[in-house]
């Protein structure tokens, strides 16, 4: 490759990295935690009641009631099946004149599907896919995913000439920039497949609707949308034949779908969502979605006649076409659901490594532009260092303090759901302010130690405050609570170690650096 080309790609890599790096740091940190969404959800709700065994019978009555009150729901109405984490409620979904509506078993009245309350686990997940910004955040993350893809391609290209020679090189020593560069490269290259997966599936998951609409109008003359529906669901063509009909219950249809899935060779099938079309009419049809294990794309669907329960169509692992297999694989690869617990740990570690990749990228920007003979550093280096420390470390602190708020809020009489999100944003804002005031070298140490204390407190306080729940769950052989406590404490130790290392750099490292603490000039020799 020509030197000029290499330089161009280096510039592109730098700028795409800077543009997308902050959002990606937040997304990867929150996404790594989201690998344990259910465990965090269980941890966050110590007083949650067990799901009632009769909830699907009540769901059957709920759907009939909704269709009677809201005729628009007859066209299509869906309902979720119970899951074994507490914030998950059995919820009905339908499209009314002014958008999607939801109603839970216990709420008694419909709500807009957008404005449901977020528990702690859902907030961390939301942070992952839209940075906590309602409505436009998800599109922003879609654009970030595309920029991320460009950064990956250019990063690979500039590293290509010495890829093999430097792959396992990690050169600790006097040249700290070399060490950071080696760490950035080795993590970038070794986790490249993982990053490619996220750049591609992240863009698709965030921008699929926009992309489909663009293709639909620009190149397919309106024929893509119907094809897309057929390519991603199992629902056959249906027709409202009028009259009235008695619907089979969600529980019954779920059981029949499972039976059909097992007969078709799926390893297993647990229904998690189903929908009726033409509810209560002749011609009514149901589609049950569910997950099977031992498949890359675990999602599958079975379509049934909603009146007599005949199986009309199957799209399951091992028995489906390229469209359904690909669609299901997008979800499986992104959410890491195609394996067991060890895969989730792998995704968790790769997620944290990804966050480190973006953080180290910013550090390399700072390090490359550093003045080597002056303690004072240029304005752009200072600004970048402040933003990196304030936003990235502020996010780590914000997440830990949000966990604390969830734990301590109820003691002050606050609803946990109401304090989690404001707490997070207040802490991030405070962290940025603190970094501006204290300067990045000291603020980084402060924020790392604060995060260490907050994280350790999450685990220790939960053990102290909810010891009865911890013992009960252990006696029942459930490890979500103890696992969350221990990981929080371990992350506290990890952040403390980073804090110690950063303080050492401030005190003893190169004084001509943004990371050096102000110190007395050395005596002239």
């Amino acid at each position, binding site marked *: 490759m020509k030197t000029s*080309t290499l330089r*161009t*790609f280096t*510039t*592109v890599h730098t700028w795409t990295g800077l543009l997308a790096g902050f959002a990606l740091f937040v997304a990867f940190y929150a996404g790594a935690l989201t690998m344990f969404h259910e465990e965090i959800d269980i941890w966050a709700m110590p007083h949650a009641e067990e799901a009632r065994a009769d909830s699907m019978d009540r769901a059957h009555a709920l759907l009939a009631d909704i269709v009677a009150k809201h005729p628009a729901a007859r066209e299509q109405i869906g309902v979720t099946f119970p899951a074994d984490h507490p914030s998950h409620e059995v919820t009905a979904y339908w499209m009314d004149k002014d958008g999607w509506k939801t109603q839970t078993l216990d709420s008694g009245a419909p709500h807009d599907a957008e404005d449901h309350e977020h528990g702690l686990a859902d907030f961390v997940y939301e942070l992952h896919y839209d940075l906590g910004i309602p409505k436009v955040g998800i599109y922003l993350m879609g654009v970030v*995913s*595309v920029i991320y*893809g*460009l950064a990956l*391609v*250019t990063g690979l*290209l500039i590293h290509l000439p010495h890829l093999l020679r430097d792959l396992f090189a990690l050169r600790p020593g006097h040249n700290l920039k070399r060490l950071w560069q080696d760490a950035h490269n080795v993590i970038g290259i070794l986790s490249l497949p993982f990053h490619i997966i996220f*750049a*591609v599936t992240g*863009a*698709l998951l965030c921008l699929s609707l926009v*992309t*489909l609409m*663009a*293709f639909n109008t*620009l*190149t*397919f*003359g309106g*024929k*893509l949308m119907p*094809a*897309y529906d*057929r*390519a*991603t669901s199992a629902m056959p063509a249906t027709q409202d034949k009028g009259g009235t009909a008695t619907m089979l219950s969600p529980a019954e249809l779920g059981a029949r779908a499972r039976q059909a899935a097992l007969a078709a060779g799926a390893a297993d099938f647990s229904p998690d969502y189903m929908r009726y079309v033409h509810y209560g009419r002749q011609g009514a049809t149901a589609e049950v979605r569910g997950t099977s294990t031992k498949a890359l794309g675990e999602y599958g669907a079975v379509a049934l006649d909603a009146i007599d329960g005949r199986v009309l169509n199957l799209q399951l692992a091992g028995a489906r*076409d*390229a*469209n*359904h297999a*690909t*669609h299901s694989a*997008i979800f499986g690869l992104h959410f890491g659901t195609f394996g067991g617990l060890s895969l989730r740990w792998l995704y968790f570690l790769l997620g944290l490594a990804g966050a480190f990749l973006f953080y180290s990228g910013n550090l390399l920007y700072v390090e490359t532009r550093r003045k080597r003979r002056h303690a004072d550093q240029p304005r752009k280096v200072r600004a970048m260092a402040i933003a990196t420390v304030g936003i990235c470390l502020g996010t780590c602190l914000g997440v830990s303090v949000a966990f604390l708020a969830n734990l301590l809020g109820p003691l002050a009489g606050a609803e946990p759901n109401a304090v989690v999100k404001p707490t997070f944003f207040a802490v991030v804002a405070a962290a940025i302010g603190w970094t501006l005031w204290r300067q990045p070298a000291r603020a980084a140490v402060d924020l790392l130690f604060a995060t260490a204390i907050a994280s350790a407190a999450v685990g220790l306080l939960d053990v102290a405050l909810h010891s009865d729940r911890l013992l009960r769950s252990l006696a029942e052989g459930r490890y979500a609570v103890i696992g969350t406590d221990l990981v929080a404490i371990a992350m506290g130790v990890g952040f403390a170690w980073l804090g110690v290392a950063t303080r050492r750099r401030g005190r003893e490292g190169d004084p001509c650096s943004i990371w050096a603490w102000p110190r007395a000039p050395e005596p002239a020799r």
Partner: protein
Amino acid sequence: MLAKTLAGILLGLPLSMALISLAIWLWPGSSEAVVIPMLVAFFPLWTGVMAATFLFTSGARAWAWLAVANLGAFAALYLAKQTMPGL
């Protein structure tokens, strides 16, 4: 640099869309059978086009060549839609 970046974004987008649509339309057998795998290839293709655009020697050349490529791709798509069953 900026001209090439904009060319890659603004002209690379329709070019990638046209190429993906063309691939779906020309697929032997049923076009509908490959809709999702082809659409998955859209973002990687666009990213590739954006990266490749930086290889042009000047911004003007990037705009010109990508404009020509767009014309060609959309013309081919138009022809295919006239003559093949497609979606």
